[in-house]
């Protein structure tokens, strides 16, 4: 069958490997990304940005820029309407935040990171706007910058913001169980410190906004390349003091997100304000350098752990101190570091644990979740601790994990923490021992020692490593969907959920098609349009299939019920006698007696003055907002076999197996793609991606030459082994699947590197482990007999 043929018409779309309905137009170059939007009289914005990490603004002279031919306006903070001269609202407060500092849309009188926006130029085209930006003369009084999270909390550190008491932006102590008893009774205590840098998300499409004011109706439409249409709308309502009913945020095609596009950024408000004032549409298209400087990141964390174990290697307790380099502001509160620390116990029974979390302000761009959202760091720390403990106790690395797993019989299992959704961390379902066992079996873990010995005899260094994780996904509060049968017989799904490549449209079509008995081609899906549905949140936290998917399911089931009632009335049978197929409702045992969806929809819309028969209500449509009781916890195991070339610190991954349980699969093709892509991101985190700053907090990796994303040669085929433990928390039994591949990658890869080089006795505590860093570690371990004359001083 060719791809131009109709999509597979299967009975039962849920669980089927259905080709995506999104693809045809994207393969023809007919997508509609925000920067593809051309409107008559469109103007273009460019921003003047701070070259300093920290400075006071003495004055700004915009006159030379305004004089440039083709420039319409130049705005600084003082030019904005009063509502937009306030700080951007903090939508995710937390009592642990001491100074809930949020940015201004344009800097007021102080810049707090390199790239902070100071002024905007609106011009006929982007070239002119950028020309004029260079003529905006900002007089800065440069202040000392805080460049490092650890240094930020040291006595005598400069302050990241004027007016704050110190750089401790948030602090939190929590715990459960009797930690003193756990350590007093421990046979072994393992201590280690880790540094991790998670870099940036770098979707291939950067941030783009187009704002269009419709003077006739007073309507403002903002097209965005974001992840959270309703959160963007909430911010715009406040910053523009705008009528919510005349504000529409739309995301058409979005070229990847991975976290930072869920954040509201000041540029969006500025573009909207300019469009309204000038009564002309205004576009801002970010460039990659701006994205490096100003899109949020995850960056540096320092982890200190003490793990208490009994004589058999069973965990007794865990003490964790974590320091997070937050950057300048709190656009997502402390959700990411909070997720990180509460993820640490993972799939293991940890009877007692304490956490001491410190969040430091620095003069860098803010941090917020990137694919994995703090969990990769937690899993790196915990899995590395288990590797270290295994070495200390002389246990096999898989065995020490087996001895500590939460067992399926313990489900639901309460860890002891409160999760970021305000509910206890309570694993709803999963079979962690089986997941690891399956991944190890497929990776032929048993056969590895023989492979290693053979390779070593041939002068090669191969190693194997593993990592387990549990991830709280599908977070509420809700997402919604309307399912509607139209008078033309087609079915429409409307949802506030916003895809950026995850294949949501196909997934929702599959869910609705099963309920309504229609082929996918008969279903139109509108996503990420705030005018399509009353309420919504956005796409992050692996939450859409759980929240929006179940909303589609519930609404479609109710529409099915409405169709059956109306058709039963018209065909003079009972609703239970109605079957549905291919856009027709017919009598189950007499298919010739039937009514088309089109006719039923028209009848359901009513005739003026005529009442409905009993049991029939208006319209073949329903709206549902599924609100999960708590997070659905997915889990997985990565097993990686790789070869190291010690002379250049380079690795080659030979085998990558991912045991993965995200509950019921709607479309295995899409889930496999999510896992493979997430693993690629994890490989970048483990070996390449490092967002670096100098001692003045000046970014020194600000393009794709200095900051490496994994390429086609770095990412192997991932052998994904699904387990399907349905979540009991939602009707479809689904869990999130978009981030799992990323989460255990670094400990599995770095554990494998260490194993390959076991003869040098390395214990690796840093990620990313770049080739240079690995080479350096090997050199320090005496791996190279460098002549003294060539050794570095």
């Amino acid at each position: 069958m060719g791809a131009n043929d109709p999509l597979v018409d299967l009975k039962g779309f849920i669980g089927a490997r259905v080709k995506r309905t999104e693809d045809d137009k994207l393969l023809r170059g007919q997508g509609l990304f925000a920067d593809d939007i051309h409107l008559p009289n469109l103007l273009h914005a460019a921003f003047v940005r701070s070259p300093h990490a920290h400075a006071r603004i003495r004055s700004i002279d915009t006159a030379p820029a305004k004089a440039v031919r083709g420039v319409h306006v130049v705005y600084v903070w003082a030019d904005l309407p009063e509502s937009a001269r306030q700080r951007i609202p903090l939508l995710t407060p937390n009592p642990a935040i001491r100074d809930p500092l949020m940015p201004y849309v344009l800097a007021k009188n102080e810049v707090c990171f390199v790239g902070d926006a100071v002024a905007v130029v609106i011009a006929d085209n982007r070239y002119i706007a950028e020309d004029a930006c260079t003529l905006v003369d900002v007089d800065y009084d440069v202040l000392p910058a805080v460049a490092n999270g650890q240094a930020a909390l040291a006595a005598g550190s400069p302050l990241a913001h004027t007016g704050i008491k110190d750089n401790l932006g948030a602090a939190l102590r929590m715990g459960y169980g009797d930690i003193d008893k756990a350590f007093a009774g421990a046979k072994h205590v393992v201590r280690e410190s880790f540094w991790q840098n998670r870099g940036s998300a770098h979707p291939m499409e950067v941030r783009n906004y187009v704002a269009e004011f419709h003077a006739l109706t007073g309507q403002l439409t903002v097209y965005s390349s974001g992840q959270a249409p309703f959160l963007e709308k909430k911010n715009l309502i406040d910053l523009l003091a705008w009528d919510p009913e005349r504000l529409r945020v739309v995301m058409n095609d979005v070229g990847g997100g991975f976290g930072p596009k869920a954040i509201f950024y000041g540029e969006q408000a500025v573009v909207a304000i300019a469009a309204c004032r000038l009564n002309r549409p205004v576009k801002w298209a970010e460039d990659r350098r701006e994205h490096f400087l100003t899109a949020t990141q995850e960056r540096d964390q320092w982890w200190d752990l003490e793990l208490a174990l009994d004589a058999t290697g069973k965990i007794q307790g865990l003490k964790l101190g974590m320091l997070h380099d937050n950057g300048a502001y709190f656009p997502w509160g402390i959700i990411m570091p909070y997720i990180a620390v509460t993820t640490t116990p993972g799939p293991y029974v940890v009877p007692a644990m304490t956490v001491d979390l410190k969040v430091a302000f620095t003069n860098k761009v803010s941090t917020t979740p990137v694919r994995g959202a703090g969990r990769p760091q937690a899993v790196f720390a915990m899995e590395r601790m288990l590797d270290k403990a295994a070495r200390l106790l002389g246990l096999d690395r898989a065995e020490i994990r087996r001895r500590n797993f939460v067992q399926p019989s313990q489900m639901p299992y309460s860890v002891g923490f409160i999760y970021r959704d305000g509910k206890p961390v309570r694993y709803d379902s999963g079979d962690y021992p089986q997941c690891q066992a399956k991944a190890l079996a497929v990776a032929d873990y048993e056969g590895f020692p023989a492979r290693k010995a053979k390779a070593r005899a041939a002068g090669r260094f191969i190693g194997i490593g593993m990592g387990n994780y549990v991830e709280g996904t599908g977070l509420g509060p809700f997402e919604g969907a309307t399912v509607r049968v139209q008078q033309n017989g087609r079915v429409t799904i409307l949802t506030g959920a916003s895809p950026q490549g995850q294949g949501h449209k196909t997934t929702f079509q599959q869910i609705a098609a099963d309920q309504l008995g229609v082929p996918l081609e008969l279903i139109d899906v509108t996503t990420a349009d705030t005018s399509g549905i009353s309420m919504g949140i956005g796409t992050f936290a692996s939450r859409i299939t759980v929240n929006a998917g179940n909303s589609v399911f519930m609404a479609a089931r109710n529409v099915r019920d409405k169709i059956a009632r109306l058709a039963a009335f018209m065909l003079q049978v009972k609703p239970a006698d109605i079957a549905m197929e291919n856009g027709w409702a017919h009598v189950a045992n007499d298919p010739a007696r039937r009514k088309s969806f089109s006719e039923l929809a028209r009848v359901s819309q009513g005739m003026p003055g005529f009442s409905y028969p009993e049991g029939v209500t208006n319209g073949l449509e329903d709206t549902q907002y599924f609100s999960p009781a708590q997070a659905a916890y997915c889990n997985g195991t990565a097993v990686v076999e790789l070869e190291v070339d010690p002379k250049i610190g380079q690795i080659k991954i030979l085998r990558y197996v991912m045991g993965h349980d995200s509950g019921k699969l709607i479309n295995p093709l899409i889930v496999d793609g999510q896992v493979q892509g997430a693993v690629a991101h994890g490989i970048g985190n483990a070996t390449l991606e490092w967002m670096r700053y100098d001692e003045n907090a000046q970014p020194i990796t600000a393009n794709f030459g200095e900051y490496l994303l994994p390429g086609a040669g770095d990412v192997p085929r991932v052998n994904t082994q699904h387990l399907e433990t349905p979540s009991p928390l939602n009707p479809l039994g689904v869990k999130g699947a978009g981030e799992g591949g990323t989460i255990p990658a670094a400990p599995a890869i770095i554990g494998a590197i260490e194993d390959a080089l076991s003869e040098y006795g390395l214990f690796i505590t840093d990620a990313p482990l770049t080739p240079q860093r690995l080479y350096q570690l090997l050199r320090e371990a005496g791996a190279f007999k460098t002549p003294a004359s060539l050794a570095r001083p």
Partner: protein
Amino acid sequence: MDTRKIKLTVNGKSYEREVETRMTLGDFIRHELGLTGTHYGCEHGVCGACTILLDGRTARSCLMLAVQANGHDLVTIEGLALPNGDLNPLQNAFWENHGLQCGFCTPGMLTTLTEFLRENNNPTEEEVRIAISGNLCRCTGYQSIVDSALACAKRMREENITL
């Protein structure tokens, strides 16, 4: 404003335009001709999303000026489908093998692989990986793109067709 008149062919159609000399070719294609299927991902020649075919050879449209394309024959993603409107074998293979997620890198992947598969319709997996090593994708983890290219090559050999 320094401008020049240029004449070029894009997807078989001739255009004659007055352009600013400093305008990049990608901006010209996207914003002057309205062919927005070619994407800008980095504007410094690394990500490959803006790759087009210029006289049959791949070129980064972010690193060329529009005036440099004067007199040349260009093909963008919009020009890849068959004359009857069907997707071509490479586009088809991408659909069959889930070779795209967000679709943003797709124009560059398709044009790069078009050039490559025209020269080598029997590549190894390693050769495909090298062929797309100058194109970044943040969604797929590349495997499905590699599989798409291999599936297309197989079909090209079996059906004795080219791209």
